[in-house]
């Protein structure tokens, strides 16, 4: 399997430019009904300061990938193989004590549902300060509190200093997500993993949150992995995109290219099945046939083959799992896991 090439397509990164490097990461869930490999030998690099979108549908393994990077996969899931290097340090080789010095300091997490992502019985201030004090031994509580207030101010919560003593239930969903962002940026991490940060929010609140988040990470040059199923958010927010399907990254490219010229049939299907404002109404939407496969019983060949408009029934697609290949030319070059990628891209470019 051709997975050793650093699959950052838009430019070949210099070594020190890499914030996070993932190699052959495999995470499995062992349940009574079988073994579900949620992340199947995934490898990729992220440039420092890059905002990477990971797109996939439920069950594609995108959340498991996020938790695997942080080393927080919970039983019955576990990471069975692979490497995760943050700033060159292999997190997989670290013990829990060393990891707890990295988590919250060099990398942090923003979670999907703001209603359940904060401890309901602790004040917001306590929860922010907990993160500050843990990584700044010897800092006084007063200074930590000052810093927490400044953080709330940064995420545009009015009356920050007073709001520190509020409990999560006294905040609206949007406000809680701002608190989550404040916690995530508390120690100026190099990497923030945001798992569907705005999915549970209303459209106007979502716009507010993305605005705040984008301003903060762009100004500090933080690397971001944004996990989402919303292609619109990816288009607006991310520099590069990984598309996940059945535990694999099936395509990675720059955002511009992937929307202009999707290389994988699954990517193309996803893009086509979103209603667009300019589209003629009442025409049928493009829809992917069938349902995602069970991870416990994946097809022997390409996992997308049974639903694929391009390769369904082709002998090669049915029998042989496609490895990642570089496809396309010059600026449209990207990694795709599809037997037909080169052929399809050439046809598309010829048009």
């Amino acid at each position, binding site marked *: 399997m051709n997975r050793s090439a650093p699959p950052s397509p838009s430019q070949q990164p210099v070594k020190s430019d890499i914030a996070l490097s993932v190699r052959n990461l495999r995470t499995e869930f062992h349940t009574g009904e079988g073994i579900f490999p949620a992340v199947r030998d995934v490898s990729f690099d992220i440039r420092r300061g890059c905002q990477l979108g990971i797109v996939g549908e439920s069950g594609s393994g995108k959340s498991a990938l996020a938790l695997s990077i942080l080393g927080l996969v919970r039983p019955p899931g576990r990471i069975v193989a692979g490497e995760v290097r943050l700033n060159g340090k292999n997190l997989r080789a670290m013990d829990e004590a060393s990891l707890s010095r990295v988590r919250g300091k060099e990398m942090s997490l923003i979670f999907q549902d703001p209603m359940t992502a904060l401890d309901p019985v602790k004040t917001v201030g306590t929860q922010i300060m907990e993160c500050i004090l843990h990584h700044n031994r010897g800092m006084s509580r007063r200074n930590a509190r000052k810093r927490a207030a400044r953080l709330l101010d940064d995420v545009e919560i009015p009356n920050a200093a007073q709001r520190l003593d509020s409990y999560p239930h006294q905040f609206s969903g949007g406000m809680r997500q701002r608190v989550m962002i404040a916690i995530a940026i508390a120690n100026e991490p190099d990497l923030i993993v945001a798992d569907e940060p705005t999915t549970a929010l209303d*459209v*106007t609140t979502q716009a507010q949150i993305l605005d705040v988040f984008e301003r903060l990470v762009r100004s500090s040059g933080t690397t971001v992995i944004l996990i989402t199923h*919303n292609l619109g958010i990816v288009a*607006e927010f991310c520099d590069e995109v990984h598309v996940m399907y059945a535990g694999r990254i099936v395509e990675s490219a720059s955002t511009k290219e992937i*929307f202009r010229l999707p290389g994988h049939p699954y990517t193309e299907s996803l893009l086509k099945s979103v209603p667009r*404002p300019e589209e003629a109404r009442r025409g049928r939407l493009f829809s992917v046939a069938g349902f995602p496969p069970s991870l416990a019983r994946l097809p022997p060949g390409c996992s997308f083959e049974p639903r694929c408009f391009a390769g369904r029934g082709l002998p090669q697609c049915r029998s042989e799992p496609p490895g990642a290949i570089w496809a396309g030319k010059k600026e449209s070059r990207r990694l795709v896991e599809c037997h037909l990628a080169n052929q399809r891209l050439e046809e598309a470019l010829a048009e």
Partner: protein
Amino acid sequence: MKGKGNSTQPVISPDSGTAPERLIGIESLVKEFSVGKNAFGRKQATLRAVDNVSLEMNCGESFGLVGESGCGKTTIARCLMRLEKPSSGRIMFRNTDVSALRGKELRRFRRHMQMVFQDPHASLDSRMTASQIVGEPLAIHGIGSRAERKERVEEILTLVGIDPLHGNRKPHGFSGGQAQRIALARALILNPDMLVLDEPVSALDVSIQAQVLNFLQEIQERFSLTYLFIVHDLVVAEYFCDRIAVLYLGAVVEMAESRALFHNPLHPYTVSLVSAVPVPDPESRGRGRRIVLSGEVSPAGMRTEGCRFRARCPIGRNREMCKASSPELVEKSPGHWVACHFPGELEHIGSQAAARPAAS
């Protein structure tokens, strides 16, 4: 007032040309909830979830109700279904006043209108099999013999694309998209005239969402169904609906044919909603495009004098007129109704007057 249109409530269908048959007429609907009770069970405050809403839906139409959480769109649907009793106002279904129905008549009326909810796994009884769920309305209304019901269930399951052989599975044996089809089968089995779809695709993945939307269009054409489509995703609404009403804090702030609403929104709230939708096109990315509203939807806006949107409005926050009076819903152009003192002033594409969130 800037608007030239008459300032009456739109009781008559905005469609003035070929008058289609009216199926639903909601007239000055008000629904109040009491919030908070004291020790002796006395009401302490009332929350007006729906504030004087008038709408019409025509036969075979898809009517969209769009708005953020707390705007009253679900309450309107629940009043329509008579799951809630309206505090005042009338709901006409053809020529009967639904809000006055009770007992047997109410049950008979319910056959004509069915509801489908957002999360199929939450709305379907997890202890019943798919066939039982789908067949239950028949049993409740005492329609057909056991054998006839079984046949009808199989027929309708096949129609929605579920293998009747899987009918003995429970809802959790199905994926989200499949479970939503089962919910649809249950809604369709009594041959209703109308379906109330409460965020039917919001919980589904993109590829499955397209399947369900397509399927909804198919059965609409096949059975000439009327849809009330409740959705927070404006793009889905625009794609799916003929006409859309935008709700803010219990009242309609704008109503128009969906194309007109999306491409020429007149109310600043609609404008910001349209601009806030992330568009899956990196080329159109730009900060000037997006209008970010300050603050959040809060019921407090309902109690203040003047326009209910004023506190968050990018153009009217400090205007005397907006402070002084609440704008009426008026017809700005044929079929395009808006409740704003300064309609169309905030434009959506390329607007540089984008409101930045207040710093404090």
